């Protein structure tokens, strides 16, 4: 009897799965067009899955091993089950292999079940609590049903009662694992995830690459939508990406805005996009809500505006664009792109940038700096430093990109320190002076792509007039934008953060440094230097050269917690239960360090805004400048000789 029932069940489930897949595919395709490598992507997918995705998953050994066993066992078991039971190839070797696959899957599923006994709050409950049972049911049923094939039990063992039980078990198993995959069950992540890896919008990320710059909006076409209003305004592969979410909540656990009690949870946001994609309400969401916003009050559909239906605007404006969620996401979903896309619509179409947003953008338009300061005062901080202007010199080795910190008294100390370092190392450098403008970072992250592009284009035109080898900046935001986001507008430069440059100078023996004497030090990784650009080592090298042994925070390196200053978050200023910089200061205090080294004007401002008593905050450039020693004669002579030659 099983021999007739099993093929029917299997093929019925497969048929339903194919129908579901088609439906789902057309749902994604409601999004806007996107350039993808259809075939190449599919071919690259297994490697992306096994290398890139596993690389992220492997940070959590428990779930990595569990997943390998369960998923590997399942894929093998499914294929073999179709061959053995579907097509009735009752071959003994195949039977034994199928038994092995089922056993592997069963063991994996046990560990899945164990994790679900007391699930951490970041995990979603609801149907996800059912999944381990379905996995166990699938593997156990096929295991027993295969025993006769493998010749371990007689063919008619157990009679019709067992056959019935097994049929029910198989039916349950294949419903969850075959067509549940394409009809929106928890297993959807496997189906959508695989295709998401194939047609990812940032294919450069695979194979160890990095792609963090926001994508440019086409402003030349007046009919192209300005950002995302409705789910269908996303590109179709973005929609596909949302569907790949496994609701693991790694993003939620890393999100500083969520931890601060601001109304943002990146996991919920992605799930809301899925709701928008398919239409409906968020009532079925079984994870942590946006802090302060009960679940079940929002709904949307593919052609309905997202904001103030599905998602409230303050959710979008809470994000600091720190990329912690993207870094942690095992499905390599791009949360920040989605958030900025929706912000673009709010700013460019609705004129609804909250709080100080409108003022800052107006200032950027009228004065090229967010504070609305007289652009003529951009070089006042260096009035006594005798800096060379690139407009006088026309070419130089290093263009020192000063950034808007030029208008901020605190940051001027950093800038002056860095100038001291440059001078001590005899670097051939110059500044743009009044020709420099805001890099456009804040405008872009507030969704004002038009102002960003206007600033960027004018900066690129200015830079195009001169020749220089490299750009060095003390501001990771300018650094990131110049390095990764000007390219799409025609500006390609070699850009360095000042910590990288100082590390180079030290390695080349160009700096004569003493030892740091200010007590113990910890280091705060700026998001736009670390996660955005992968520079974790240079700042630590510099600190080490000063004789500092960095007391690392628990969350450092790629797990560094944002200071709260990115993405225009201090401008939009969405209230929460606590402030992000305060939380970061707690991280800092836990190390017991007396001083925290930073490498970003934003971080400096945010952390110095925390009430005392707290550790002192110093930029790396300041720490280096503090211990600069007069160059010994030998070096000085050598340099003169070089110049003569």
């Amino acid at each position: 009897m099983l021999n007739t029932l099993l093929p029917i069940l299997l093929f019925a489930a497969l048929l339903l799965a194919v129908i579901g897949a088609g439906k789902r595919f057309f749902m994604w395709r409601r999004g806007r067009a996107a350039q993808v490598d259809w075939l190449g992507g599919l071919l690259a997918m297994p490697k992306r899955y096994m290398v890139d995705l596993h690389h992220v998953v492997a940070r959590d050994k428990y779930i990595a091993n569990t997943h390998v066993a369960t998923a590997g066992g399942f894929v093998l078991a499914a294929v073999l089950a179709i061959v053995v039971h579907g097509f009735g190839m009752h071959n003994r070797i195949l039977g034994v292999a199928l038994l092995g696959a089922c056993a592997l899957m069963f063991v994996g599923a046990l560990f899945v079940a164990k994790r679900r006994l007391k699930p951490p709050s970041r995990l979603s409950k609801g149907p996800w609590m059912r999944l381990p049972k379905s996995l166990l049911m699938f593997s156990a049923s096929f295991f027993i049903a295969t025993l006769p094939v493998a010749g371990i039990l007689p063919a008619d063992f157990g009679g019709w009662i067992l056959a019935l039980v097994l049929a029910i078990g198989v039916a349950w198993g294949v419903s969850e694992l075959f067509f549940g995959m394409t009809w929106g069950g928890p297993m959807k992540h496997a189906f959508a995830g695989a295709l998401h890896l194939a047609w990812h919008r940032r294919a450069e990320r695979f194979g160890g690459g990095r792609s963090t710059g926001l994508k440019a909006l086409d402003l030349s076409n007046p009919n192209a939508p300005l950002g995302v209003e409705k789910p269908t305004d996303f590109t179709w592969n973005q929609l596909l990406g949302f569907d790949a979410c496994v609701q693991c909540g790694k993003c939620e656990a890393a999100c500083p805005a969520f931890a601060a009690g601001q109304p943002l949870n990146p996991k919920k946001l992605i799930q809301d996009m899925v709701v928008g994609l398919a239409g409906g309400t968020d009532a079925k969401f079984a994870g942590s809500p946006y802090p302060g916003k009960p679940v079940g009050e929002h709904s949307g559909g593919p052609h309905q505006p997202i904001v103030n239906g599905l998602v409230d605007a303050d959710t979008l404006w809470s994000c600091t664009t720190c990329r912690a969620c993207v870094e942690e996401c095992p499905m390599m979903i791009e949360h920040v792109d989605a958030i900025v896309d929706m912000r673009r619509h709010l700013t460019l179409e609705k004129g609804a940038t909250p709080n100080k947003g409108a003022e800052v953008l107006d200032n950027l338009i009228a004065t090229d700096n967010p504070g609305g300061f007289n652009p003529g005062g951009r070089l006042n901080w260096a009035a006594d430093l005798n800096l060379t202007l690139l407009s006088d010199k026309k070419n130089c080795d290093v263009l020192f990109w000063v950034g808007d910190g030029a208008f901020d008294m605190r940051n001027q100390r950093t800038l002056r320190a860095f100038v001291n370092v440059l001078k001590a190392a005899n670097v051939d450098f110059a500044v743009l002076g009044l020709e420099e403008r805001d890099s456009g970072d804040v405008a872009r992250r507030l969704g004002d792509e038009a102002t960003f592009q206007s600033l960027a284009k004018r900066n690129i035109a200015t830079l195009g007039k001169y020749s220089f080898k490299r750009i060095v900046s003390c501001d990771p935001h300018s650094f990131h934008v110049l390095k990764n986001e000007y390219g799409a507008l025609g500006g390609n430069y070699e850009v360095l953060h000042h910590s990288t440059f100082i590390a180079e100078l030290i390695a080349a023996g160009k700096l004569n440094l003493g030892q740091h004497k200010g007590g113990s030090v910890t280091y705060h990784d700026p998001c736009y230097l670390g996660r955005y650009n992968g520079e974790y080592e240079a700042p630590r090298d510099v600190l080490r050269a000063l004789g500092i042994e960095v007391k690392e925070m628990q969350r450092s390196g790629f797990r560094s917690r944002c200071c709260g200053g990115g993405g225009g978050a201090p401008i939009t200023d969405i209230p929460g239960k606590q402030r992000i910089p305060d939380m970061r200061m707690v991280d800092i205090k836990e190390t017991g360090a007396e001083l925290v080294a930073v490498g970003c004007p934003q971080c400096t401002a945010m952390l110095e805004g925390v009430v005392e008593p707290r550790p002192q905050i110093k930029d790396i450039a300041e720490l280096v400048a503090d211990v600069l020693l007069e160059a010994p004669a030998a070096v000085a002579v050598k340099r003169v000789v070089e110049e003569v030659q």
Partner: protein
Amino acid sequence: MQPKPLNVLCLVSIGAHPTSGRARRAEQDARAVELGLRLAGEQVQVLHAGNAEEEALRAYLGMGLSELSVLQQPDGADALPVLFDYLKDSGAQLVLTGSQAETGEGSGMLPYLLAEQLGWPLVVGLAEVEKVENGVAQVLQALPRGQRRRLQVRLPFLASVDNAAPVARQSAFGPARRGTLWTDEVHVLDDDLLSNASFQPARPRPKRLKVIKAKTGAERMKAATAKAAGGGGQVLKDVSAQEGAEAIFKLLLEEGVIR
């Protein structure tokens, strides 16, 4: 039934950013448009006399207007006559404008001269229109230190707004790009006064020295917010126009305003 929206027309000019001097939407004119949008929604008409090519005009469109009319004029032409010509047959019931332009002459005289020529009442420092009934508007006029005066004005009237009016909404790129600038060729009149005049940089008005003897923060706060108490002066009540005028004349002589 929704009452018929008021026929509101806003006059706007090109502004200049206070620190960079770059062209922008003028702060007060943008507030006038904001008030207009609140009163008449998208029905509000917006009018500029000057150069239709000026990109800064689009910043007004970015507030959500679908169109803006421009009476095309070269720089330095007198805006008054063309505005008068346009307004007298425009059917506008309320004309809103900023108190003073940020560029050009910036004398702040335009609302007065225009109201005089049209023969309409002028409300200076309009803060809010509370209601309009039977051709009469009840409005709030802003006085110094946050005080408000309730006025009844018959339509049509002209009103200038200053910083007491609601802050202008953000100007968005999309509507700014989509909006239409309609150009009307008008007869150009040279502004004799302007062409014969010579410009000189403004000198900041000297500030009255305020000696604060306060010792505590609370006292300082009080001193900072207190009305400028002249001390002298007298209140005249129930006097004839003749007596009143004489008293004013006498004061002006004493203060050296007229000699």
